[in-house]
């Protein structure tokens, strides 16, 4: 079932690839939400994890978000929405506090955790590819990662992307 779409032009199965390049708590959501939802809608999904997206495959996740250089990030607080000026966001401990606050919101609003979505992706046969070059560059080992991903490079990704209906770079 997992490979029915690969290279078979007669297949009606739609395919999607996502290049996952960012590993912060906020940016981890779009690829996992779209990947799992597409899989639930019978799309054959491949996610390629490269650069800062690669650590999203590590067994233990401790994702962080930063308000630094992110003027769009305004958190609901005391009945309004508050952002932080960069000079405050640059202070020690602010990232940790913002990350804790966002994780708290995520839980309270019934939003899935990234761990949960990642598990759902594996269950739905989403193909996860770890970028070999990034593993070499940042010294990550396959043993440190969850079970499921295969290792590949740009050509592995391109072969998939060339015959996919949707290709996203996130």
């Amino acid at each position, binding site marked *: 079932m997992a490979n029915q779409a690969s290279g078979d032009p007669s297949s009606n199965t739609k395919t999607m690839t996502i290049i996952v390049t960012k590993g912060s708590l906020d940016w981890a959501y779009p690829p996992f*939400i779209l990947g*799992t*939802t597409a899989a*639930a*809608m*019978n799309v054959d999904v491949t996610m390629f994890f490269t650069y800062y997206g690669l650590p999203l495959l590590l067994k233990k996740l401790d994702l962080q978000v930063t308000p630094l250089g992110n003027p769009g990030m305004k958190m609901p607080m005391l009945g309004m929405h508050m952002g932080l000026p960069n000079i405050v966001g640059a202070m020690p401990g602010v990232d940790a506090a913002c990350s804790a606050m966002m994780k708290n919101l995520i839980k309270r*609003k*019934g*939003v*899935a955790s990234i761990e*949960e979505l990642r598990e*759902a992706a594996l*269950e*739905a046969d989403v193909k996860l590819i770890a970028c070999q070059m990034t593993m070499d560059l940042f010294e990550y080992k396959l043993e440190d990662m969850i079970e499921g991903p295969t290792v590949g490079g740009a050509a592995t990704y391109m072969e998939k992307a060339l015959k996919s209906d949707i290709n996203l770079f996130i």
Partner: protein
Amino acid sequence: MANQLLDAKGLNCPLPILKAKKALKDVPVGETLEVLATDPGSVADFEAFCRATGNELVESTQQENVYRFVIKHVR
């Protein structure tokens, strides 16, 4: 009455859809799954999900803050 029930109340996008898809696997073709949700986005999402997957949205109703969907497992 639907054949099976999925309580997705309190869950946010995309969890109701992911859980419904999983639950549908255990619903024999021709039978129905009832989903309860509180996510207002699920109204449009279950319509889209059913159109895209070829399953039938038999009912979509709202009672106070709870949305109720009945999905017939077609394929």
